[in-house]
């Protein structure tokens, strides 16, 4: 039953991925474009496909998978349905890193300064968290450290906005922070995807340990899962995947919090079984929202983070109302 759900979600992701490649502002003959791309012809169609459509679809799927997967893993680690990839503080730090790159004008001199700044911010926050985890800090301590990092990064980001050289610069920063997949290239994919894949691997490896944590930390450890290692894997994996996501796409809200709740009625509450399904559902939601962004004819384009929150939050409320009394 759950594996059938995973299969169905996988198919849905494939369909939405194809739709995402097919949808765009410029008209595109997909068949010709693929033909040119595979044949190595530098036609306009091939360029639109390789420079605009494909990176956007790949990042949509990968960022969504990262958010859905790590949201489910953190909820399992903390045994708290309100946990979200943001709580480890890496998202805020990645955003701050990108803002710093922007603020000091590095992004004007070379385009990849934003994602590189984001990765550095995420790496710094991850180093702090891993140092704490290696010294034996408990889960609550790590989350509190994440909240502190998040607040600090938020304050410094606000400071950058406060001192922005011009209102236009501030506006551009705010837009970037809302999260978007527009105008990303395959270089962005190459920069972020390796970190994400490593992060996914680390997090997926904790499935059985997260199942065991259903019984609490002592019982989980007694079942043969060293908690220190489990924390390192989940927090390190989340930091890698989400840090890279924020670095290339900005902060895309609500996916990590909501998606595990959407998937639980389908695959049950066992945290380990939730991981892959939640990742795929996150990919589907993000791809879908990014298609909506391009179909809604507003100028400026709706930001992806705005749309995921607009879809996610009401659906979350609906779900809570429906499940009222069934679960905590």
């Amino acid at each position, binding site marked *: 039953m759950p594996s059938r759900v995973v299969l169905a979600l996988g198919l849905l992701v494939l369909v939405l991925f194809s739709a995402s490649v097919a949808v765009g502002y410029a008209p595109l003959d997909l068949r010709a474009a693929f033909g040119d791309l595979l044949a190595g012809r530098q036609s306009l169609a091939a360029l639109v496909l390789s420079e605009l459509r494909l990176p956007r679809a790949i990042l949509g799927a990968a960022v969504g998978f990262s958010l859905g997967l790590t949201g489910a893993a953190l909820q399992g680690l903390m045994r708290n349905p309100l946990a979200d990839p943001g709580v480890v503080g890496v998202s805020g730090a990645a955003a701050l890193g990108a803002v710093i790159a922007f603020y000091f004008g590095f992004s004007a001199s070379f385009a990849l300064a934003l994602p590189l700044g984001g990765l550095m911010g995420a790496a710094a926050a991850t180093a702090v968290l891993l140092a704490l985890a290696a010294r034996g800090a408990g889960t609550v301590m790590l989350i509190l450290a994440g909240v502190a990092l998040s607040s600090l990064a938020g304050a410094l980001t606000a400071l950058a906005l406060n001192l922005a050289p011009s209102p236009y610069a501030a506006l551009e920063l705010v837009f970037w922070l809302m999260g978007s997949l527009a105008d990303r290239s395959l270089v962005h994919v190459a920069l972020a995807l390796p970190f994400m894949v490593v992060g996914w691997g680390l997090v997926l490896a904790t499935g059985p340990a997260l199942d065991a944590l*259903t019984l*609490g930390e002592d*019982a989980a450890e*007694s079942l*043969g899962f060293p908690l220190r290692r489990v924390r390192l894997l989940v927090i390190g994996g989340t930091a890698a995947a989400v840090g890279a996501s924020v670095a290339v796409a900005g902060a895309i809200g609500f996916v990590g919090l909501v998606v595990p709740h959407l998937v639980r009625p389908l695959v049950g509450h066992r945290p380990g079984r939730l991981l892959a399904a939640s990742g795929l559902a996150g990919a589907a939601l993000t791809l879908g929202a990014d298609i909506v962004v391009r179909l809604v004819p507003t100028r400026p384009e709706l930001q992806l983070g705005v749309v995921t929150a607009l879809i996610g939050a009401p659906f979350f409320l609906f779900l809570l109302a429906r499940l009222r009394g069934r679960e905590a």
Partner: protein
Amino acid sequence: MRLAARSVSVTRGAATLVRDLSLDVEGGTFLGLLGPNGAGKTTLMRVLAGLEVPTSGNVLYDGRAAAEIGRRGLGRTIAYLPQDGRIHWPLPVEEVVALGRLPHGTAAVDEAARRAMAAAGVEALATRSADILSGGERARVLLARALAVEAPILLADEPSAALDPLHQLEVMALLRDTARRGAVVVAVLHDLTLAGRFCDRLALMKDGRLLAEGAPAAVLDDAYLAEAFGVDAVRLTHDGETVVLPWARRG
């Protein structure tokens, strides 16, 4: 299996929770661990389970140290039932019990999980969601989870605290039967009557020290009970068995 604690001490800050405590339990023995609140029983259980490294002394499992066996190996060697266990997600009962199979590389509801459910009398609850269990039902489900490990050592911290009289009797009988089948069973207990009736041996702790250890009749001695709990006990005889009832505050 032989579980041995050798001069175990645990200090945390200025507090000494367990003092120079030694204990030997052979397979086939049901040992009841008694003592007033704060005597160090739970700390000792965590040390025996390998969850806490003692400040000094060591614990040996068939002569081997925890570090030698490794966390994974310990998972198959020791089933540990924590005090006030919670079930954090509303899984069906059979999936909760099957979590006990994780040390064996599976979380499937297999034969061992079914045996454990049958032994703990929770078969009828198999598909019930864990969030709508009563306190007593949850306690028995968690005991079934621990039994599902089928480990040679079972450590249970207050397994009968939440149970009604019938289920207290059944759980005590179940722990005794588990020991009869060859396991080392150590349970923290507060009911002196049940402890005296069902356990093969008792260990009485006070202030982190082992005050008395041995056959139930010897440990449930007036002087020991007065010193450990500050109570006077009444003794009755029923069907040739001695029943010990704490009756009044000492003095």
